[in-house]
């Protein structure tokens, strides 16, 4: 009996406990304690009302140039190093130069961690950085045990820069939106000192409202949903906990570089297909 109870606790699915908990809420919602002055905006306890679309839905999406303009303003506010490029090659050159300039050696080696992602692959970072004796580690899409995960994080710690892409970028707040996929660990955008991200202009959305509507629509994106983990990143990690002095680089990256590729070539892969792990190295 005790073991059964313990097992239930582990699964957290003790139906009795859950039932009791929710019943307490139900009876509270129907409690006759309304004799005293209720707030003016008293509401009915109707269940699961219609999901309404907000006024935000009426806002225009914005043309690409407009979105870029908004992105530039937001990036400047957040100290994001934003650069616009005509081609992946140009972005790759620029990023390689930044890495060569900024990446300090760790334990005598210079390393960069990069996502297994088609757009990132087209930056050709390994070739570009070989001359500067900087090693690129591409993340593999392997099912990991806890022990191999620890090793992965230890290696990632040695990388000075983490290179990722993103699912979307919200122009108004310069927010990168990343959903969890094999080969694209969220730790790459977290553990290294510098986070460099590359996106195509077509991945720009106007704002958070648009993202929320997109993800809750019935269309493809709505069905795919948020996955089991979705991360939104707006600028480098920061804190103001000591006398309200703003310091960048609290626990995560101290700098964020964002490379936007404006004209997507015809053979550019859709961001959705990037989710499927491929073997490129």
């Amino acid at each position: 009996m005790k073991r059964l109870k313990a097992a239930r606790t582990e699964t957290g699915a003790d139906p009795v406990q859950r039932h009791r908990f929710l019943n307490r809420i139900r009876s509270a919602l129907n409690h006759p304690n309304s004799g005293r002055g209720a707030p003016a905006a008293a509401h009915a306890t109707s269940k699961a009302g219609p999901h309404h679309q907000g006024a935000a839905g009426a806002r225009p999406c914005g043309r690409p140039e407009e979105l870029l303009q908004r992105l530039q303003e937001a990036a400047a506010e957040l100290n994001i190093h934003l650069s616009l490029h005509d081609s992946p090659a140009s972005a790759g050159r620029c990023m390689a130069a930044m890495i060569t300039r900024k990446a300090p050696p760790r334990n005598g080696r210079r390393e960069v961690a990069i996502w297994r992602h088609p757009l990132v692959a087209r930056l050709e970072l390994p070739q570009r950085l070989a001359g500067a004796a900087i090693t690129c580690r591409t993340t593999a899409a392997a099912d990991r045990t806890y022990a191999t995960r620890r090793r992965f994080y230890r290696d990632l710690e040695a990388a000075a820069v983490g290179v990722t892409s993103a699912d979307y970028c919200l122009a108004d707040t310069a927010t990168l939106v990343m959903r969890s996929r094999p080969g694209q660990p969220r730790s790459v955008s977290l553990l290294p000192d510098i986070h460099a991200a590359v996106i195509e202009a077509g991945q720009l959305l106007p704002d958070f409202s648009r993202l929320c509507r997109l993800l809750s629509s019935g269309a493809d994106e709505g069905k795919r949903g948020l996955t089991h983990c979705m991360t939104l990143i707006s600028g480098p990690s920061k804190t103001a906990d000591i006398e309200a002095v703003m310091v960048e680089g609290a626990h995560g990256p101290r700098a964020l570089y964002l490379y936007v590729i404006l004209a997507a070539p015809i053979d550019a892969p859709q961001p959705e297909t990037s989710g499927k792990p491929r073997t490129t190295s």
Partner: protein
Amino acid sequence: MAEVRRRYRTIGDPVLQGALANLQHRLGPAAAAAYQALPEGPALRQRAHAIRAKAIADLDVLLAELADRITRRGGHVFFAADAAEAVAYCLETARRHRVKLAVKGKSMVTEEIGLNAALTAAGIETVETDLGEYIVQLAGEHPSHIIAPAIHKTRAEIGRLFAAKLNIPLTDDPPTLTRAARRALRKKFLTADMGITGVNLACAATGHIALLSNEGNIRMATTLPRVHVAFMGMERIAAQLTDHDILLRLLARGAAAQKMAGYISYIGGPRQPGHTDGPESFHLVIVDNGRSRILADRTFREILYCIRCAACLNVCPVYAKIGGHAYGSAYSGPLGAVLTPLMKGIRRASDLCLGESLCGACRAACPVDIDIPRMLLALRSCLAEGDRYWQIRPLNPLAGRLCDIWSWIVSDRRRYDAALACARFCQLLLPRKNGMLHRLPPPFSGWTSSRDLEPLARRPFLRRCSRQPRRHREAPESGADRNRS
């Protein structure tokens, strides 16, 4: 609570007052401007209020939906009736997974249930990782502000603390101190077995919890360790993602006048096959701990709409003078002044109910437009008149009797005039200085501790009205108020 009573009546030291004044000047007006700059305008706060009201009215349905979705992804959901159950579940989970080190993200509800002390007592090293919380933990104290937990500490104090505890050279440079904490905590993140966080807001329709931070510590705690336990007060849920859009944008503006929190993590379960990051074991603990009792009372249900942004702390003039510790619970400021009495006892926390000037700045600052002054008044009437539901007797029956007499007097002008005449006679006995009353007897002596009081005028204005023979209701113009008795 006797300690609270003393502290609540005492203002903080000048350093604390200075720090809080700076914080309020930086964040209070900035949040107001941020609401103004919303594309939908500041009226979005009222829409957010309606969204919260609806979510609370549907709470049972939404929680069941959330739990089902998380369970389907392989997560565990535990419904804890009180603090003891929530703590016991966490300890049991830690024991099962042989946890030795836990890293924590900032969480008000774990402060409320006293989780840290229980974990430490069970031999589990528990490290706060939000920089402010870390400072406070190293100093052996408790946070004094929801989003700026170490606001009561100066950089010099923090420098000395870090020099002693982290073995670094003495400095008071915030960037250097931040880097020192980063180095120390990075080691903890990489070796921790368990990550413990709160929940800013869950989403029932998608089955996720949303966690906000600027430092990245919460991302660390939810990405690296092999177990993640998230605690949420049962009211912290919204029906759908489009509600999150409105609430999270307002939350970031109310908390720090930001357009968007630096990091938002939506977590819906443990690591999936083929993925690198995330815990093998994910647990969501939904905590009641007195909330359903509040839920049942329409008068106070509105406090459950709170999304813990601390905007009210950033404008409250009383909080600015006494600081967060004076409130004697995890929840300080105007929010705490309503929530703490309801959770810990209205009579025990009577100072929290009575010790506000009811200025209303908190309501104007609240991103979800919670009428905190209304609830403070309702708490006061529980204290004054007693309340069956909250099982309290009147705090001061004698004051109630005196108030009865007052109401008898004011419901008739002749009685009122007689009472004023009587008061005017009594004030002849009081000492004066420069024409002002200098010292009043108890219970009014508080006023004259630092202020004089003008004496009652020789004749009330309305006496002059009624003495006019013919058009007696026409108000007289002449006579300044300089003719004092």
